[in-house]
C-alpha cells in the first residue's frame, strides 16, 4: 500500500499549521515551476474567467464584511482585476526563454521566484486578492495570503475562487494558500518564510514587510493633490474629480485628497462642484468635520469608505442625503491641518492659489505631508507644455496624471493605455519602495541572462586616399584643384624643410592650380601648444579650406592640433586627452572634423606613420604637460607617401625612425586588438625593415629603392597600429624618451628585445582583457612574424630567441647600442627617475593593448634589464 502523503492542515490558525502549510506550498510550487507557458496560460485564463464570474458575490461580501465602500464600485474593481490583468499579460512570456538575440548571443530565461507572501488591505480586499493571485499564477509562483482581520472572509473567498479554477485547469493543489485566522505573529511568520513579499496596505504593514529581511514590493500611502489650472476644461476637471473621489467612497489610495484651484477660475470651479452635488462646508462645519476625520493626526476608522452623508452625520453637520463630496475650503497645507491629510473617504480639501507656482508649491507640501512617491494630478490645457513640465519636475510622485480622475487613472489602462494595470502601485525610494512603477508580472520573476562569448565589432580605418610611389605628390595635389576645387591651402612645416626648399614644389603646384596658399614653418621637434596656437591664429585669419602638413611626426602632429583648434575653438584639451579603454566606448565624444578644411599629410621621414594614424601629441610649454590625442576624427583625409621628400634624411633620423617602424609593426602584430587586416600590413612592414633598413641607413639617397621600401613600410606599419594599437614597448619608450631626452625610435630600440621576451611568456602573471584575445599566444605570434621574415628555429621558443638576436644585429647595423647605459644615460639619473617612469609607463595609453597585462614591478625589472643588459 502506498504511503499517503501528509496533507497540509485545513485551517491555518497557529504557527505550526502555518509552517506545515508553507512546506506543502513550496513543494507544490516546485512542480508548478516545471509547467510550460502553454499550461500556465491555460491556468491563467481559467482563473481569470472564474474570478470574473464571481465578481458580484465577492463585492457584496467585501462591503458586508468591512462595512466600507460601495458594492457597485467594488464590482468594477473585481472586474478590472480579472479582465484587465488577464488582457495585459495574456501574451506575455513568463516561462523559460522569453527573449533571445542570436546575433548578440544573449538569451533571457524567466524563472519563478518561489513563494510569494501577499498582504491584502481592507480597502480593496477582493480585487487585490484576485490581482495578486492571478499574477502569481502567470509567473508560476505559489502565493500565500495574509488577509486583514477586518476583511478575512471575503479575501479568502476571492483567493479560493481563483485557486479552485486554477487547480481545475491543471495547477498543483494548494498553489494558493491563506491564513484563516490572521494575527501579527502569523503575518510575520509568512513574511519570514516567503521568497518575496507583495505588500499592499498602510505604512505599518509595509514597514514590517521591509524589515522581514526578504525582498519586498511594498507600497505606501498616497495623498494625491490635484491642481486645476486656469486653462483647464473646468467641467471635465470637476466631474473627473467627483467621479474619482466618490469611487468606492474614496478608498482607492490614488484618489484625490485635495484640489488647488487657480484664483481666476475658483468661483467657476466651486459653482460646478456645487451644481454636481458636492457640499461646501461652512466655517463652523469645517471645524466639526476636522475633528471627526482626524484624531491625533490619524485617520478616524469610522469614516473610512463611508458616504459623505454618513460622515457629515457623524460630525453633526446636516447635508442632503445624496451629497457626493464634503468639501472644506481651507488655507493651510501644513500637516496640522486635518484636511491636508489622506482621508480615504469622500471628503476633499480645496485651496485657492494666486499663481500656478503657488499651486505647485502647495501640491509639493501635500505630497510631503503623506504621499511621497504616490500620485499627483493636474488639469490643464495640454498646449501648456511649460507649465506641465514645471509640474512634472516638482512632483515627487511616481504617477503624474493629466486631466485624469486619479483613482481610476492611477491603476492604469483605463484612462491611459500605456500605464500598466495594477492594484499595487510602487512609490519608489520616496515611498521607501523598491519599485516606482505599477507592479506587474515582471516583478515576480527572476530573469536569468545567458550571455555567450562574442568578439568585439572591429573596423579598419585609414585616410580616404593614400598616394604612394616615387613622384606621386604632384599627381595627388592635382586632385585638390581639379577634382575638389579647393581655394585656399595652409601649409604647416618646420624651418629646416622650409629653408631647404621642400615647400617649393608644393607651392608651385598650388600656384599652377590657382590655389591661394600660405605657410607656417615654425614647428619645432616635440611641438608645443604655444606654437600650435600661433599657427591656429594665422589659420583663422587665412581661413583655408585645405591644410597641408609637410614633415616628420612633429609637423604632422602640430598641424593636426591646429586643425582641431581651427575647426573647434571650444574643444578642451584635457577632455580630448582623457585616457580610454576602448576608443569606441570612450566617454568623451570627439568633435567632428573636416567641416572647414581637408587635411593632407606628406611625410618627409620613414617613421611615425602619422600620415595615416589618428594620433597626435602636443606639449604645453608652460606646464610641461603632454596631451596625447587619439581619435579617428584626427585621421588625415589624404596621405601622400612620396619618397622624393625623404631622400636626404640624415643617418641618425633614418636609424631612429626606421627602428620605430619595426617597433610599430611588431607591437601591432602582437597587440590584443590585432586583426587579420592589420596582420598583413604588420608582417610586410617587419620583413621590409629587416631587408632594407641597413641599406637605407648606409647608403641614404644612393639607394632610392631601399628608401622607398622604408617609406612604404612606415606607412603600412602606421595603418597597422592605427587600428591594432601598440603595447608596453611604446608605453615604456614614451617615458624613457621624455625623462632622458632619448629620440623616440632609439628609446623603442633599447627596450625592444627585453619586452619581446617578457611578452612571449607562456605563463604570464596576467593577460590582457579583450574578447578576441583568447589565451596567451604572444610567443606564437612573435614566432609567426619571425618566420615571415625568414627566421626559423626548431620551435616557437627558439624562433623568438633567434628573432631577438636578429633584432639586436639590426640595431648594431644601424648604430644603436644594446643598452640604455651604453646610450650614455648616467646610472644615478636613471635610477632617480625609475619609479616615476614605471608608474607613468604603466598608466600610458599604449599599455592597454599589450598582450601581457604588466605589473608595475615587472615594468621596473624590464627597465633595469634594458639599462644594464642581460
Amino acid at each position, binding site marked *: 500500500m502506498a504511503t499517503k502523503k501528509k496533507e497540509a492542515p485545513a485551517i491555518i490558525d497557529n504557527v505550526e499549521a502555518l509552517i506545515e502549510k508553507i512546506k506543502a506550498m513550496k513543494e507544490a510550487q516546485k512542480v508548478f515551476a516545471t509547467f510550460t507557458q502553454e499550461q500556465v496560460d491555460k491556468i491563467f485564463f481559467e482563473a481569470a474567467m472564474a474570478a470574473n464570474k464571481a465578481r458580484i458575490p465577492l463585492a457584496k461580501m467585501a462591503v458586508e464584511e468591512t462595512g466600507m465602500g460601495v458594492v457597485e464600485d467594488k464590482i468594477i474593481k473585481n472586474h478590472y482585476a480579472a479582465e484587465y490583468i488577464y488582457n495585459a499579460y495574456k501574451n506575455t512570456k513568463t516561462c523559460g526563454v522569453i527573449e533571445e538575440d542570436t546575433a548578440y548571443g544573449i538569451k533571457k530565461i524567466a524563472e519563478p521566484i518561489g513563494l510569494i507572501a501577499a498582504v491584502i488591505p481592507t480597502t480593496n480586499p477582493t480585487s487585490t486578492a484576485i490581482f495578486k493571485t492571478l499574477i502569481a499564477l502567470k509567473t508560476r509562483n505559489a502565493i500565500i495570503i495574509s488577509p486583514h482581520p477586518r476583511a478575512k472572509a471575503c479575501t479568502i473567498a476571492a483567493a479560493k475562487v481563483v485557486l479552485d479554477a486554477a487547480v481545475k485547469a491543471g495547477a498543483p493543489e494548494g498553489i494558493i494558500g491563506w491564513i484563516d485566522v490572521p494575527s*501579527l505573529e502569523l503575518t510575520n511568520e509568512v513574511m519570514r518564510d516567503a521568497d518575496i513579499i507583495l505588500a499592499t496596505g498602510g505604512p*505599518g504593514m509595509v514597514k514590517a514587510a521591509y524589515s522581514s529581511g526578504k525582498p519586498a514590493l511594498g507600497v505606501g500611502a*498616497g495623498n494625491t493633490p490635484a491642481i486645476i489650472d486656469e486653462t483647464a476644461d473646468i467641467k471635465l476637471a470637476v466631474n473627473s474629480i467627483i467621479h474619482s473621489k466618490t469611487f468606492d467612497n474614496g478608498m482607492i489610495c490614488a484618489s484625490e485628497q485635495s484640489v488647488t484651484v487657480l484664483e481666476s477660475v475658483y468661483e467657476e470651479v466651486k459653482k460646478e462642484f456645487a451644481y454636481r452635488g458636492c457640499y461646501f462646508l461652512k466655517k463652523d462645519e469645517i471645524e466639526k468635520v476636522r475633528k471627526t476625520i482626524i484624531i491625533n*493626526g490619524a485617520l478616524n476608522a469610522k469614516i473610512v469608505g463611508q458616504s459623505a452623508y454618513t460622515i457629515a452625520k457623524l460630525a453633526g453637520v446636516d447635508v442632503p442625503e445624496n451629497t457626493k463630496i464634503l468639501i472644506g475650503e481651507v488655507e493651510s497645507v501644513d500637516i496640522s491641518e486635518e484636511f491636508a*491629510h489622506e482621508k480615504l473617504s469622500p471628503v476633499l480639501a480645496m485651496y485657492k492659489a494666486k499663481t500656478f507656482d503657488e499651486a505647485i508649491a502647495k501640491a509639493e507640501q501635500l505630497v510631503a505631508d503623506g504621499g511621497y512617491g504616490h500620485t499627483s494630478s493636474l488639469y490643464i490645457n495640454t498646449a501648456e507644455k511649460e507649465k506641465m513640465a514645471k509640474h512634472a519636475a516638482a512632483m515627487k510622485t511616481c504617477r503624474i496624471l493629466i486631466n485624469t480622475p486619479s483613482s481610476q487613472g492611477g491603476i492604469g489602462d483605463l484612462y491611459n493605455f500605456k500605464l500598466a494595470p495594477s492594484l499595487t502601485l510602487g512609490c519608489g525610494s520616496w515611498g521607501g519602495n523598491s519599485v516606482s512603477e505599477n507592479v506587474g508580472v515582471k516583478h515576480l520573476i527572476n530573469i536569468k541572462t545567458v550571455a555567450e562569448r562574442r568578439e568585439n565589432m572591429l573596423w579598419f580605418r585609414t585616410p580616404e586616399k593614400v598616394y604612394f610611389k616615387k613622384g606621386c605628390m604632384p599627381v595627388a595635389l592635382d586632385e585638390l584643384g581639379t577634382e575638389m576645387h579647393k581655394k585656399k591651402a595652409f601649409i604647416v612645416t618646420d624651418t629646416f624643410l622650409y629653408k631647404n626648399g621642400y615647400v617649393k614644389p608644393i607651392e608651385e603646384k598650388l600656384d599652377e592650380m590657382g590655389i591661394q596658399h600660405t605657410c607656417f614653418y615654425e614647428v619645432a621637434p616635440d611641438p608645443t601648444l604655444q606654437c600650435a596656437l600661433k599657427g591656429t591664429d594665422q589659420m583663422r585669419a587665412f581661413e583655408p579650406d585645405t591644410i597641408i602638413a609637410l614633415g616628420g611626426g612633429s609637423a604632422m602632429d602640430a598641424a593636426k592640433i591646429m586643425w582641431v583648434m581651427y575647426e573647434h575653438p571650444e574643444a578642451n584639451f584635457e577632455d580630448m586627452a582623457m585616457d580610454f579603454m576602448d576608443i569606441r566606448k570612450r566617454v568623451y565624444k570627439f568633435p567632428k572634423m573636416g567641416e572647414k578644411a581637408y587635411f593632407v599629410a606628406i611625410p618627409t621621414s620613414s617613421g611615425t606613420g602619422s600620415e595615416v594614424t589618428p594620433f597626435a601629441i602636443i606639449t604645453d610649454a608652460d606646464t610641461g604637460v603632454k596631451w596625447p590625442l587619439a581619435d579617428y576624427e584626427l585621421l588625415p583625409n589624404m596621405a601622400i607617401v612620396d619618397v622624393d621628400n625623404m631622400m636626404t634624411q640624415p643617418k641618425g633620423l633614418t636609424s631612429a625612425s626606421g627602428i620605430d617602424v619595426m617597433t610599430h609593426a611588431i607591437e601591432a602584430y602582437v597587440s590584443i586588438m590585432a586583426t587579420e587586416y592589420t596582420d598583413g600590413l604588420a608582417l610586410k612592414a617587419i620583413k621590409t625593415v629587416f631587408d632594407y633598413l641597413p641599406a637605407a641607413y648606409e647608403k641614404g639617397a644612393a639607394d632610392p629603392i631601399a628608401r622607398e621600401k622604408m617609406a612604404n613600410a612606415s606607412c603600412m606599419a602606421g595603418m597597422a597600429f592605427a587600428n591594432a594599437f601598440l603595447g608596453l614597448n611604446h608605453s615604456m619608450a614614451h617615458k624613457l624618451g621624455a625623462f632622458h631626452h632619448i629620440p623616440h625610435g632609439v628609446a623603442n630600440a633599447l627596450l625592444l628585445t627585453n619586452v619581446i621576451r617578457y611578452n612571449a611568456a607562456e605563463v604570464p602573471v596576467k593577460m590582457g582583457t579583450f574578447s578576441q584575445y583568447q589565451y596567451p599566444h604572444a610567443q606564437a605570434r612573435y614566432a609567426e612574424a619571425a618566420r615571415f621574415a625568414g627566421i626559423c628555429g626548431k620551435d616557437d621558443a627558439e624562433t623568438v630567441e633567434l628573432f631577438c638576436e636578429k633584432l639586436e644585429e639590426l640595431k648594431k647595423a644601424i648604430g644603436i647600442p644594446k643598452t640604455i647605459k651604453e646610450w650614455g644615460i648616467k646610472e644615478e639619473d636613471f635610477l632617480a627617475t625609475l619609479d616615476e617612469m614605471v608608474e607613468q609607463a604603466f598608466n600610458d595609453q599604449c599599455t592597454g593593448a599589450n598582450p601581457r597585462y604588466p605589473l608595475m614591478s615587472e615594468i621596473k625589472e624590464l627597465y633595469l634589464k634594458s639599462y644594464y643588459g642581460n
Partner: protein
Amino acid sequence: MKLENVIVERPYKKVYRCDEGIAKVFEPSHPKEDVFNEALNQARVEATGLNIPKVKSVNEIDGKWALVIDYKEGKTLEELMQENPDKMDEYMEQFVDLQLEIHSKTAPLLGKLKDKLNRQINSLKDVVDATTRYELLTRLDSMPKHHKVCHGDFNPSNVIVGEDGSLYVVDWAHATQGNASADAAMTYLLFALKDQKLADKYMDLFCRKSDTAKQYVQQWLPIVAAAQLTKKHTMEQDFLMKWIDIFDYQ
C-alpha cells in the same frame, strides 16, 4: 514602623510618612512580584545617577507588602501648577527638561517598553476587537526600537519640588526602557485626560525641546491609549476608544 500619617490613598495602596521616610503599603490583592519589581526598577534607575528617592527596604507589615523609600520634602509639581497658574510656562519647561534628562539615561536591565505594550494590547481581548488589536500590534511592531529610560507614568503629580527648587521624580513602578516618544505620548495622554489645552502645551514644548516631529509622537497615541485602557478606569473608556479606533493611511 509607625504608620499614621497618610499622604496618598489609592484603592490598592496607602502611602505613609514614617521615620524611615515614605512607606508605600500595598493591599494584599496587589501582587508581591509587582512590589519587588517596583523596588528593583527604582534601584536600577538609581544606578543611572538620576536624582531620585532611594529605595530603603521592602517589608511585610501586617500581612501587607510595603516599599520604603527616602522622603523628599516639598510639594508636587501638580500642586504648584494649581497654586501658581501664572507660572505654568516655567513649570512646564522644568517638567519637560526633567523628562528629557530621564530619557538621556540608559538602564539595560530594565524591562522593555515594547514587550510591556505588546502584553497590554494582547490583554484587551474583552474591550478591543481582534481587528483593532491587530492594527495596534502592527503599528507597535513597526515603531523604532530604542532603549531610553522611560518613566511610564510621568506627570506633574509624580514630580516633587523641594524647598530649594530641586526636582525629584517618584513612583517608578512603570519604568521601562524604550522609545522616548512613547513615554511622551503617555504623558500627553495623562494631561489630555484632564486638560486638553495643557496637553497641547506639553506636546509642543516636548517636540520643540527634543527636536521630534509631532506626528512621530502622535503615532504612539493609539498604542498608549490601549495601554491606559488596561487600567480599567471606566470613565476614560470612551475617550480612549476614540483614540484607538483609527485607520492606517493607505
